[in-house]
């Protein structure tokens, strides 16, 4: 927390960086190390959440980390999860503390230009929403003129709220920012905040995980779109490409009906498409610096994109987020989850 420590860490990390040979890709580092260092949140149910009942990290982002480890190293357990916050996540990648971050991070221009990270394909389409306590009886955003809105420090929501106030001509509404969702939700629960604003998925998750979910109402308004993607350090196309195609591989697996259950059956298929996609005969991996069976390994570990979604955000979870009819559906069903062709 101390400034001195932060700066010292920054300086040493920067020196450490500058002494790395420029040509080395993170991909080689990961393979050499044998363990993937993956940055995730641990307070975001459905994405990266430390389940207090099982003591395990779980969530869509966590499964993507496992998929990458399985694809690159052939073993989904070879992941070291590093907890990152909304604020620390970029520095964590820039200082090589982690190899990749999957932490419900909104893709926006300044993050690829000024912050200098490269984003992976969007793996979840979210929007900024508003949640209030049901006891205050607010039904829509327009009733909240003058209220105190709370969000996390360093999130896109801070600027989204400021523009929303401006558009509505509100001058007395306040924005309070907290370090993490846990404190934010506590502040809403205590009544300090009239409204909690962050991505709708997170709102649903926190309400769903609370002792009494009906105490909270998510307003129908969506303030802004908020596409999530993992990201890696800039200018390392070898690593970035490998990760991009692992992500696309999970999309394609769903589209082609490759599930955990049907995997072994499909591997015996004499269809050359499946033989190549799953790396049974030939494969796509070698030129990326990956094993040829990387998609097979990833699906074996965590399933295809649809299965990952069902496990973490599906109807059986506390924070069920409808997939049908949203951009999160496959493109064949009118959504935006789309993989380039594998040919």
């Amino acid at each position: 927390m101390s400034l001195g420590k932060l700066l010292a860490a920054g300086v040493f990390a920067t020196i450490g960086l500058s002494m790395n040979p420029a040509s080395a890709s993170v991909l080689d580092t990961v393979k050499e190390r044998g363990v993937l260092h993956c940055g995730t949140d641990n307070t975001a149910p459905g994405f990266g959440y430390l389940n207090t009942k099982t003591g395990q990290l779980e969530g869509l982002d966590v499964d993507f980390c496992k998929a990458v480890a399985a694809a690159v190293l052939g073993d989904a357990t070879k992941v070291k999860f590093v907890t990152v916050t909304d604020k620390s996540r970029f520095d964590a990648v820039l200082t090589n503390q982690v190899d990749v971050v999957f932490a419900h991070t909104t893709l926006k221009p300044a993050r690829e230009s000024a912050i200098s990270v490269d984003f992976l394909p969007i793996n979840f389409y979210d929007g900024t929403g508003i949640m209030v306590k049901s006891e205050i009886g607010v039904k829509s955003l327009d009733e909240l003129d003058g209220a105190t809105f709370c969000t996390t420090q360093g999130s896109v929501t801070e600027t989204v709220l400021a523009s929303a106030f401006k558009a509505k001509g509100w001058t007395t509404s306040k924005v309070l920012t907290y370090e993490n969702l846990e404190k934010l939700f506590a502040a809403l629960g205590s009544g300090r905040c009239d409204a909690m604003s962050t991505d709708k998925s997170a709102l649903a998750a926190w309400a769903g995980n609370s002792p009494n979910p009906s105490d909270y109402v998510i307003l129908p308004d969506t303030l802004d779109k908020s596409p999530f993607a993992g990201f890696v350090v800039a200018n390392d196309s070898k690593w970035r490409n490998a990760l991009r195609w692992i992500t696309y591989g999970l999309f394609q697996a769903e589209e082609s009906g490759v599930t955990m259950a049907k995997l072994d059956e499909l591997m015996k298929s004499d269809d050359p498409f499946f033989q190549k996609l799953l790396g049974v005969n030939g494969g796509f991996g070698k030129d990326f610096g990956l094993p040829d069976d990387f998609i097979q390994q990833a699906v074996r570990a965590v399933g295809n994109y649809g299965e990952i979604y069902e496990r973490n955000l599906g109807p059986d979870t506390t924070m069920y987020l409808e997939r049908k009819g949203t951009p999160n559906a496959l493109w064949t069903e009118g959504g935006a989850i789309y993989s380039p062709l594998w040919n």
Partner: protein
Amino acid sequence: MTVQQQTGPQPRFDLKASAWSRRKKRIKHDLLQIAIIVAMVGILIAFALAVRNGLARHGISFSFDYLWQAAGFDISEGKTFSWSGSLPNLTDFTAADSNAQALITGLFNTIKVAVLGIIFSTILGVMLGVGRLSTNWLVRQISFGVIEFVRNTPLLIQLVFWYFAVVLQFPPLAAAAKLYGGFIISQQGTYLPWPVLAEGATIPSAVAASVGIALVFTALFVSAKLRILALVAAFAALALAIGLGFPFVLDYPVANRFRASGGIAISPEMAALLLAIVVNSASYIAEIVRGAIEAVNRGQWEAAAALGLNRRDTLSDIILPQVFRVVLPSLGNQYINLSKNTALGIAIGFPELFNIYGTIANQTGRTLEGIVIVMVAYLLLSWIISAVVNFANSRLAMGTSR
């Protein structure tokens, strides 16, 4: 120097040789100093180059241009400078203001808490320190308990405790407004009535009233004879002000749907941060004060007792004036610590300098530039505090020989 020994018996060692060896030693010593300085400068340059190369490799430029761009986010409290016409004036921060103005808002909040913190922690600290030596068993034990408890738990945890377990447990605004009349103590903030200029107030009556109020306060700090004089003068001034139409009215806070308006407001974040750093610093100051009181010669107590002064007068007129001269440098340290500890406000969402820096760094990606600015700001703040303390110290210490 051993020169005057030359007339005496032959020295056992060769003087010339010893002078040369001394010179050699000095040259060696000087060379070593120069080498250390050169090495330090070299390391610093290497650091700077490494940072620059690292930034260049990632394609990050080092620039302060972002300071003049619109911030695009809101800040819950605090004032900033803005230019209307040619003179800068204090206004509320809005999202259209620049990042530089956002940082100023953060600095404003930091200084606000630091100044109030210094004042209140000194008062509470002296009370606790004196309480530690009280003849009253209960007061002594309570002071001891508070000091030991606070000094032995981390400040960050105390801060989270004050915020979530104390300040946010106040009643909600709607219930609070009915409970406390003019004062509103709620989880949305604490609101106090505050005197404002009444409508149609005239300048003479405002001056008369201000003088009267100032005289009342002066009366608290002067000797008994002057006190009566000051109170009489204050009474006359206030009477005159009332005769002219009293210029001030109390502005009572009124609860609205989400927040109260009127009076002065203290946000829950500020209240919690202030409570945490005041109580924390006060417990350290108390120990400094206690140590200094115990260091005052017992003879001073005995002499005062012999002159017939009671314990209270002895303490306030004989002991504490001596104590303050001794403790000022240590207090200065505490004040600097306190002002830096305000950065912990980030943990409860208080928009102080470090918090605002974090937000700007995340929105613009300018981490390194921002941290440089923030470090310089804290450095200047600490320097100003220590300069003020040193000044007070040199004034107070004058004429005493300790």
